[in-house]
């Protein structure tokens, strides 16, 4: 084994160790939902943004806060309400005394400048405030008063939203939904998990999470993920997956033609490939397989498939449509 090869393999081992440590730390506080935790970490290491959806009380906020506790990173939480203003997120300029004499506008960074941002109940913020996230999430910088301020890496926004309490909310527009790398759905825990949750939260012991590593490690891991190879035929399968979400395309199954108004964008393919690369590294491989694509298809596509009115009427869920798409694509 050459030194270069051993370095890459050592990085891969570190990546798997980091992943295992984070999973373990999160499991100290957050009970169950292993798939959600796994995808959340993949999303974080790929430097994507995640949308976590679920009914109240299932630990969405706790999950993200625990992740931040397990990392030595700057963390910020934004509780979105209808009166939240964009400046509350991006930061604001204020008139301040300067050392030279005359007063100048100084920029006070908002919570978006943290490494890990939790936008809690993002669908309660107004569209104007929601759009304040757009530039930051996509471009990794913020423009205030004509000046552009870069956001340091690593940078991830995790937003939560409640799907059942829709009164007084502003559903995220499609353009903003597309900026989320994954959409993760937190479901009701089973009985064993509930017992464990009760045991942990109603006793006198409080679980503590130890920060494991910092920003530099995260940046290295993110770079390593991008080095994972993907063969052209596998890449084309990812493209076929995305194309199959568009009604009228040759790859689209019948359910897409019937229930989908608009399909996924090329960003979805980017999410598919990057997420699959991370799963490949976790599996000890240096190349992407179709199984990796299959594992990330649902969280990468389900919020990017815009259903039509007929789907609403027949209560067809996007998850079912994505399942059809995955089945049709990998069967052919």
């Amino acid at each position, binding site marked *: 084994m*050459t030194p*270069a*090869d051993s370095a890459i*393999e050592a990085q891969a081992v570190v990546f798997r160790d980091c992943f295992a440590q984070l999973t373990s730390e999160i499991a100290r506080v957050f009970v169950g939902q292993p798939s959600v935790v796994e995808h959340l970490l993949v999303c974080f290491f790929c430097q994507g943004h995640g949308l976590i959806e679920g009914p109240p009380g299932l630990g969405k906020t706790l999950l993200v806060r625990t992740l931040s506790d397990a990392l030595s990173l700057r963390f910020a939480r934004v509780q979105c309400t209808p009166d939240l203003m964009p400046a509350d997120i991006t930061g604001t300029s204020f008139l301040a005394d300067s050392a030279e004499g005359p007063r100048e506008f100084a920029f006070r960074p908002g919570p978006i400048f943290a490494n890990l941002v939790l936008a809690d109940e993002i669908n309660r913020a107004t569209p104007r405030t929601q759009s304040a996230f757009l530039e930051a999430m996509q471009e990794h910088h913020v423009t205030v008063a004509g000046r552009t301020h870069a956001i340091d890496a690593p940078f991830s926004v995790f937003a939560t939203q409640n799907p059942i309490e829709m009164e007084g909310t502003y559903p995220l527009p499609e353009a903003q939904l597309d900026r989320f790398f994954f959409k993760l759905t937190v479901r009701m825990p089973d009985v064993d998990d509930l017992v464990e949750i009760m045991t942990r939260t109603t006793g006198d012991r409080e679980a503590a999470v130890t920060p494991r590593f910092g920003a530099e490690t995260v940046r290295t891991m993110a770079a390593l993920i991008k080095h994972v190879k993907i063969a*052209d*035929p*596998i890449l084309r399968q990812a493209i076929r997956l995305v194309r199959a979400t568009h009604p009228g395309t040759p790859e689209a199954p019948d359910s897409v033609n019937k229930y989908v108004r608009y399909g996924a964008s090329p960003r979805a393919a980017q999410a598919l490939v990057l997420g699959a690369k991370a799963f490949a590294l976790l599996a000890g*491989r*240096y190349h992407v397989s179709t199984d990796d694509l299959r594992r990330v298809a649902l969280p990468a596509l389900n919020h990017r498939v815009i259903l039509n009115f007929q789907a609403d009427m027949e209560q067809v869920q996007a998850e079912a449509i994505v399942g059809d798409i995955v089945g049709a694509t990998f069967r052919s």
Partner: protein
Amino acid sequence: MNSGGNARHQQDVDVFLAGLGRFRRRLARLEFVRLLPAAAVAALLVTAVAALAGPRVRIHLLPVLLVGGFVSMAAAAIVAAVRNRSLSDTAALVDRRFHLDDSVLSALVVIDDGDEMSGLVVADAVRRLADCTPQALAVQPPRTLTWLAAIGVIGTLAATLGRAVPARTLPQGGDGVGGMATTGPADGPAPAQRRTDQPGTNIQGAAARPQPSSEARAVTDAASPGAPRHDSQHDVQHDAQDQAHRAETRSTDNSPSGDMRQRPGLPAATRGNDAPTASTHTTPRDGGNGKTRAANATSGNGHGASAGGSTPTGNPGLGAGGVNGGARAAAAQTLRAGGTAASDADYAVRFRAAWDRAESAVARERVPAGRRAYVHDYFVAIRPHEVP
């Protein structure tokens, strides 16, 4: 990568490509094996076509089957070579069959990248390929195997039936002179008569051969102009007169066959040869008669016996045309043999007239193409000395 890493990477690449090449060759062989059923069916179909064309074109089936099989196998080999999978297709198939998580395909794609990660991918693929053997790739039956089997069975049946149907219209062994008349459309009486002209000719043995057409030819060839024809004229005359009398009687008693009625313009002898088509229901009793007459013919008394032998005694309605034609042939033979009723010149004149009518019928395509040779052979067999 440094020089050591490059050398190791190159070694991995060589091992990887060699291993993949083995799988590729294995797949090519499997493809050839997969095509073999289709090749076998093609050979069978060719043989079936040859068998069905048998009455018109004399073809030996075994060589056709062998040549067809060889050509089909050669075609299968060519198709297998043309359809041989590319390396990437082979890699994808190996990944799928051995559940290698697309490692072989990925290694093949990144093999020329030359960076550290591609080296790891290739090394991983080499490790995984080492655990797989090409022999584990088994032959997968083609999806059309059921159809191919059905076509093969149909082809075999067609070949068998196609061979069997014309055989029933040709002379069968064990029936002697009567067998020729009852089963052979055109060559039955001719060889019988021709052989009965020659002393010591074993008609029964000749009729027992399985190739009637070649038999007729052999008999015709044997009928050289210089061969003696009237060695036992007295016996022949007597027998012929008797046979003619009996045949005439039956002919008037029985209703003529449809076959005879359909071709009134043909010479009597020709029509007589067509009669066996209607009298194929030879009873054991017929066989006995035929054998008896065959024995007679062997002793030189069989001239004209075809007329009598052709008539199934147990089924008088059948073979009437044969009786009629046979009777005329017997009468003609009487003329030839005895010279009591007419001279050889008269026989030649009547032969010439019958020959002309036969030629006319052949020219107007009244005689099926496959049977014209029999008509010709018949007339050659009964032609008088003076007719070249």
